[in-house]
């Protein structure tokens, strides 16, 4: 493996560099902090405007119900993935060159995920009710699982960032030349607690960091998948795509590595870390970014091709908007700026420099925001009834909130690294030690005329991969009258009608007997039977007409002979017969109450969906998985805290801990 530094090049120890970075900042630092604070303040003001005037002030409307707000959340939580990659993935694969980058990368991860979580507040129409996600959750909602996944990942990120601070605080306290300042000294004493650098402490911390590394990868996968599923679990064209979850994950990785390049470059020049972070770091990160970028280009193509190829109305309308329509300019800008230019900058040897990688990364981050914006806004604008579209108009209110979020990340990082050492002291020292040992062993082996042996990280990688698959698999299951008294029948002179209702075999028989004015059975005319309903006020629903033969008209309410009607409710039901000898005659009416004993509701509920049962079980399974993750994380953190607690028993004044039990690399 290449080395971070070698004994000969090192002019400053990692402890000295970290202490130097914590000294009183220059005027430049203050200017940057003030400018960033002003931008954040403007964003907070804009949010208060949105609170006062409603979300319409941020440019939303019913055909752009989600827009820049969600793109911001996705982009910010996405870039926090960079920390997970650089720290966790490179740790698990044993890439030792990561060591000087991890603190900055993890700091960026923590800051971006916190800002991303904070951005959910202005995205919500009623932020004061957010507590209902805990008190009143709907466990079948993807948005609820977003909340669970993001908070779990956020906690894991903070733990991953904070645990190595214990040995680092101890190390800096030991190396302090009196310029650390009262506040930091007190703080570091609290953090370092009883850290003596004892073998057992190192062992427990190392195991804890490896375990959290293994967990943080599937956690990050889960966050970006669930974010994608908030879209993919709707029937909206282009959102309802199975590729969205993995595509979100790759987008997050791609933009995350780009953010690490930018942040590392910024702090490298601002804090004079050139000795630790070399152009080779940038080139390596650039390769990583390019590989992920190529993957993202592939995913984007695979996302669009099937829908555009088949040409279903809705999906192809959305893709036409995107590729050749009103969004085309922005989409092709993304293709050029977010894919072609960065990949070329990495591919061409002449631009494969620190500056080249920084330029490439500064294309990737905003362009990936643009891609997310297009992915959110284009389908949201699409009207799924008419096939037309609405539009989102970014207002100053939303733009200010977005800019505030962008400014908040470097601001938080700059403030964070006033307090926290900028290099992961302990990790770098460990890697140096490790390398020295490897070198010694290699030399010994060479001397013994053997090839240098390289241990394979395969088993570890397979283990991590299995964990990812298990968790991703678990998340993948988600997927998921009574009759009113009738008007008294008139008893007119002339023809007369009688109505009788009987029940046999559960069927209602209506029999109308009609006599003409002379009292003889009527020979002509029709009887119309009706049922009286009170569902929408008293109304007679006609059931059909029957010709009178020999003074009688009969109807059996079996559905087939009664206009599709069968009694729908038991109890007294009023039926009416109306007789007209000729068309145009004033009808004669007669009603009868039948106490219906057998009724058939006309309504048949829809058959249950095939996977309804699975959907009911899924939340339980997910809660079990999330519970396991939290228990593991908390146990791990507790073990580290326990092993580094202050022991009352013997020696070790807290002021000079970290020197015990390990060689120091301090130069004379």
């Amino acid at each position, binding site marked *: 493996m290449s080395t971070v530094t070698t004994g000969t090049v090192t002019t400053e120890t990692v402890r000295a560099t970290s202490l130097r970075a914590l000294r009183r900042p220059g005027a430049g630092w203050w200017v940057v902090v003030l400018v960033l604070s002003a931008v954040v303040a403007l964003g907070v003001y804009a949010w208060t405007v949105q609170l006062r*005037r409603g979300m*319409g*002030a941020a440019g939303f409307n*019913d055909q752009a119900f*989600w827009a820049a707000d969600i793109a911001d959340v996705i982009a910010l939580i996405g870039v926090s993935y960079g920390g997970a990659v650089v720290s966790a993935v490179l*740790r698990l694969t*044993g890439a030792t060159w990561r060591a000087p980058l991890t603190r900055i990368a993890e700091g960026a991860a923590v800051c971006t995920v916190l800002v991303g979580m904070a951005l959910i507040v202005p995205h*919500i*129409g*009623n932020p004061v009710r*957010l507590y209902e*996600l805990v008190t009143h*959750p*709907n*466990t*079948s*909602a993807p*948005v609820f699982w977003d909340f669970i996944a993001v908070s779990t990942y956020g906690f894991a990120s903070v733990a991953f960032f904070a645990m190595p601070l214990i040995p680092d605080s101890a190390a800096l306290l030991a190396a302090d030349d009196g310029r650390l300042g009262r506040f930091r000294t007190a703080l570091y004493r609290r953090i370092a607690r009883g850290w003596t650098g*004892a*073998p057992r402490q190192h*062992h427990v911390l*190392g*195991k804890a960091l490896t375990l959290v590394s293994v967990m943080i990868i599937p956690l990050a996968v889960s966050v970006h998948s669930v974010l994608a599923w908030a879209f993919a679990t*709707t029937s*909206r064209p282009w*959102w309802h795509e199975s590729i969205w979850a993995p595509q979100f994950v790759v987008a997050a990785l791609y933009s995350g590595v780009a953010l690490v390049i930018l942040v590392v470059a910024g702090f490298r020049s601002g804090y004079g870390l050139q000795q630790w972070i070399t152009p080779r770091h940038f080139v390596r990160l650039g390769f990583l970014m390019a590989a992920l970028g190529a993957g993202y280009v592939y995913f984007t193509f695979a996302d669009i091709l099937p829908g555009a190829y088949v040409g279903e109305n*809705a999906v192809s309308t959305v893709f036409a908007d995107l590729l050749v329509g009103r969004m085309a300019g922005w989409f092709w800008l993304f293709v050029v700026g977010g894919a072609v230019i960065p990949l070329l900058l990495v591919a061409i040897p002449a631009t494969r420099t620190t500056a080249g990688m920084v330029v490439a990364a500064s294309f990737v981050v905003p362009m990936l925001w643009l891609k997310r914006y297009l992915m959110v806004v284009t389908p949201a604008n699409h009207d*799924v*009834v008419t096939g037309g579209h609405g539009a989102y108009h970014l207002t100053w209110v939303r733009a200010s909130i977005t800019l505030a979020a962008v400014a908040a990340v470097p601001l938080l990082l700059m403030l964070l690294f006033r307090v926290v050492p900028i290099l992961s002291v302990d990790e770098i020292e460990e890697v140096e030690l*490790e390398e020295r040992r490897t070198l010694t062993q290699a030399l010994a082996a060479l001397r013994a005329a053997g090839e240098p042996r390289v241990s394979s*990280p395969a*088993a*570890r990688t397979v283990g991590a991969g299995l964990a990812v698959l298990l968790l991703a698999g678990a998340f993948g299951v988600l997927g998921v009258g009574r009759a009113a008294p009738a008007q008294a029948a008139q008893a007119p002179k002339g023809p007369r009608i009688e109505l009788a209702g009987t029940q046999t075999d559960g069927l209602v028989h209506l029999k109308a007997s009609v006599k003409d004015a002379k009292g003889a059975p009527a020979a002509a005319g029709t009887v119309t039977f009706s049922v009286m*309903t009170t*569902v*929408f006020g008293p*109304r007679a*629903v*006609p*059931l059909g007409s029957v010709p009178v033969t020999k003074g009688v008209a009969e109807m059996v309410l079996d559905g087939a002979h009664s206009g*599709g009607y069968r009694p*729908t409710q*038991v109890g007294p039901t009023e039926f009416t017969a109306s007789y007209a000898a000729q068309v145009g005659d004033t009808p004669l009416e007669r009603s009868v109450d039948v106490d219906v*004993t*057998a009724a*058939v509701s*006309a309504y048949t509920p829809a058959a249950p*969906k095939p996977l309804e049962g699975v*959907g*009911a079980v899924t*939340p*339980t*399974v997910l809660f079990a998985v999330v*519970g*396991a*993750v939290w*228990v*593991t994380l908390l146990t*791990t953190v507790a073990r580290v805290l326990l092993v580094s607690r202050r022991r009352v028993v013997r020696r070790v004044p807290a002021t000079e801990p970290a020197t015990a039990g*390990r060689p120091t690399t301090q130069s004379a």
Partner: protein
Amino acid sequence: MPTTTAVPDLRDGPDRRTVLAAFAAAAALGGAAVPLVAYRADAATTPAPDDHAGHGATPAAADDTAGPVAAQPEHAWCMVIDLRYCDGCKSCTKACQKRHSLRPEQTWIQVFEMEDERGGSFHMPRPCMMCEDPPCLKVCPVGATIRTDEGLVLVDTDTCVGSRACMAACPYEARYFNWREPRPPVDLGMPNTPQMPVARRGTVGKCVLCADRLPLGELPACVEACPMGVLWVGDLVADVAVNTQGASVVLSQFLADNDAVRFKEELGTHPRVWYILGHGQKLQGA
């Protein structure tokens, strides 16, 4: 102590025992949480039908071909829209907006002008489809969308957090957000209920089929206002439908006789709104 042990082995995998123990503990925790989760999952879907066992509608001796009539609610509200007679006057929209104090762009029942197959156009009113399997219900993170046992999909504006997930999920664009301060409501002397919601800024609103009127035997505002008798309101249980032209029909026969169809049947949402076509119209989602 030998120095070698002072260096943690970064290449170690995670501590298997810790992981296993943690998973076992969490599984136990999860198991304990099952009743709770089961309860929530249940509350999020259609209310249990046996809430209404023993109701007056229960026949003592049900026809055994009819299935479990006892498990059915008293009403199953629905709508029938007869596109043959709609002239696009939008009386329904105006009546609805007046009754619910909506802003002009909030069209709980919207009359779309659609293209027919011959290049002409026809008018298509679209209320809430009152789906039996409503996509909006599942995605609400706080369960603010509810479905009554009589099949009305309603929003509790006292719970809604304004995530708009329901707007994303609705395949009929039937949901409208209060992006700005809503109009002051007409004082009906009633508290805010899902049946007669008072619009609140930052919450979502939608057609409620005038749920407050139906139990009284009154017609929804849109049905009442339709001068063409296009809009029918019906009850699938009692098998009747009525419009304001004084007509009352046996619902099942009416739907069958007129070849009524539902909008976007293929999505499996089981809408409770039927459309009657007849003049070259096509119902097809976009």
